[in-house]
């Protein structure tokens, strides 16, 4: 039995965490994640969860405590944003490489400097090579659904990798929307109990975590990680389908919006995808064949499936909410173009937008569609959409 509520993105993530009732949550506050953990801490205080909440002195410590607790065999969750994720950096990699299925909600915020508390994706896009699975959420509903599914994806016996769910700071985190939630028992049944491979608390079977791993074995451990990440594509689809049966909302690697007959497709992730859909709706009313492909899973990157859809279009634009500073386009642009290489001649155009929380307007996305139609393609240097000259 689902229940319809009005929730902000942060409330949706906190409610999902309450229903999951993780064993351990180490956390340190940072805007715009602070509210998420403040709400969850009230559940701890009120005895609504059995969670051991550890208030630490920094995000580096938060992720370190998460690693320790997860190695002990606990189900561990945490949350952060921007500079907090940056301070975790060293341990973010260790969590993935040690194959600990920690789930972390990252509330997207621009990295300093200059200091800015609003949304862009520079934080999680920077972590794209850390070995974490990444699920991007468009709205509060997806935040809730992704957090619940993330536990199952992370803890799948073939995967054993941490998962980052993301939602756009303030735009989603502090905006109230309609969200359908499951019953507590349904979520409990869906996530089940964690079966850890080598729990440190199993003192009858002592093991060593984090030993020195040099030229003779390190490479093999990276190979295992790469294989698990590759396999995660199937598992994300399996979990998404099972979740669909339970909730009525199925999830894939990406969402196709009006793409079937679309000549021009905009690729976006996060809340920007919602704006792009609104832009596509208006253009469709005028008879334009336009669509939106919303990426949900950025790691692992769904290259093959994505290329099959985008290859049908006449031109594709990719929207990046982080710069990347490669000089040749944002991270999403580069991956999409790489996915199409050798499979399709479709021109791919790169746009960087919304840095530091600047609004993405519907008319701007319509302008992007217009560029595609006119044959204006930014494939060498991205167009910085909405920046002042």
């Amino acid at each position: 039995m689902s229940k319809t509520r009005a929730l902000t993105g942060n409330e949706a993530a906190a409610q999902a965490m309450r229903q999951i009732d993780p064993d351990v949550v180490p956390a340190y506050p940072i805007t715009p994640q602070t509210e998420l953990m403040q709400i969850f801490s009230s559940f701890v205080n009120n005895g609504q969860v059995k969670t051991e909440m550890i208030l630490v002195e920094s995000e580096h410590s938060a992720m370190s405590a998460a690693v320790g607790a997860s190695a002990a065999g606990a189900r561990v969750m945490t949350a952060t944003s921007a500079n907090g994720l940056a301070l975790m950096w060293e341990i973010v990699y260790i969590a993935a490489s040690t194959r600990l299925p920690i789930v972390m909600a990252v509330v997207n915020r621009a990295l300093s400097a200059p200091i800015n508390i609003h949304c862009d994706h520079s934080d999680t896009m920077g972590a794209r090579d850390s070995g974490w699975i990444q699920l991007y959420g468009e709205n509060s509903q997806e935040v809730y659904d992704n957090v619940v599914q993330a536990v199952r994806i992370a803890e799948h016996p073939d995967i054993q990798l941490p998962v980052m769910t993301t939602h756009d700071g303030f735009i989603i985190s502090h905006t109230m929307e309609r969200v359908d939630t499951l019953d507590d028992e349904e979520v409990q049944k869906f996530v089940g109990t964690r079966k850890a491979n080598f729990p440190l608390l199993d003192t009858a079977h002592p093991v060593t975590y984090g030993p020195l791993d040099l030229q003779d074995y390190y490479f093999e451990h990276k190979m295992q990680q790469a294989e698990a990440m590759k396999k995660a594509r199937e598992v994300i689809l399996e979990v998404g389908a099972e979740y669909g049966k339970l909730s009525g909302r199925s999830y894939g690697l990406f969402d196709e919006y009006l793409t079937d007959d679309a000549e021009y497709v905009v690729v976006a992730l996060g809340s920007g995808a919602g704006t792009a859909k609104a832009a596509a709706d208006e253009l469709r009313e005028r008879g334009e064949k336009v669509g939106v492909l919303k990426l949900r899973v950025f790691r692992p990157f769904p290259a093959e499936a994505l290329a099959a859809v985008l290859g049908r279009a006449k031109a594709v634009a990719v929207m990046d909410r982080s710069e990347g500073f490669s000089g040749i386009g944002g991270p999403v642009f580069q991956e999409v173009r790489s996915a199409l290489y050798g499979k399709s001649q479709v021109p791919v155009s790169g746009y960087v937008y919304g840095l530091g929380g600047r609004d993405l307007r519907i008319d701007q996305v319509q302008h992007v569609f217009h560029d595609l139609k006119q044959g204006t393609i930014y494939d060498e240097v991205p167009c910085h959409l909405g920046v002042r000259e």
Partner: protein
Amino acid sequence: MASEKIPGWKEIPAGGVIAEAGNAIHYKTGDWRSERPVLDKETCINCLQCWVFCPDGSIMVRDEQMTGFDYDHCKGCGICAHTCPVKAIEMIPEDDAGSIATDEWGVRQGKKEEADKQ
């Protein structure tokens, strides 16, 4: 060690976990030594200063007698030779190890002077 097959990525526990307790015994840490100690038992007075100072527990002792070196774990630091009050321990380059007659524990066979003449 070199002849043993090293397991591939499908055969080892994920995440770098060592799932077997106490298996450090299989790990030979002395394979990168550039010099090795050898013992002249005729000169040795079994004071066991070498045993006290060896940082790696690689001095072999039985019945209060110095009996040689554990080459599987000796790193060749030379502290034993430096510490020895009667200069019974000599550091020799690994490359020359084959030209000096010792038992497997590094104890010289025959008189030191005679051995050096060979």
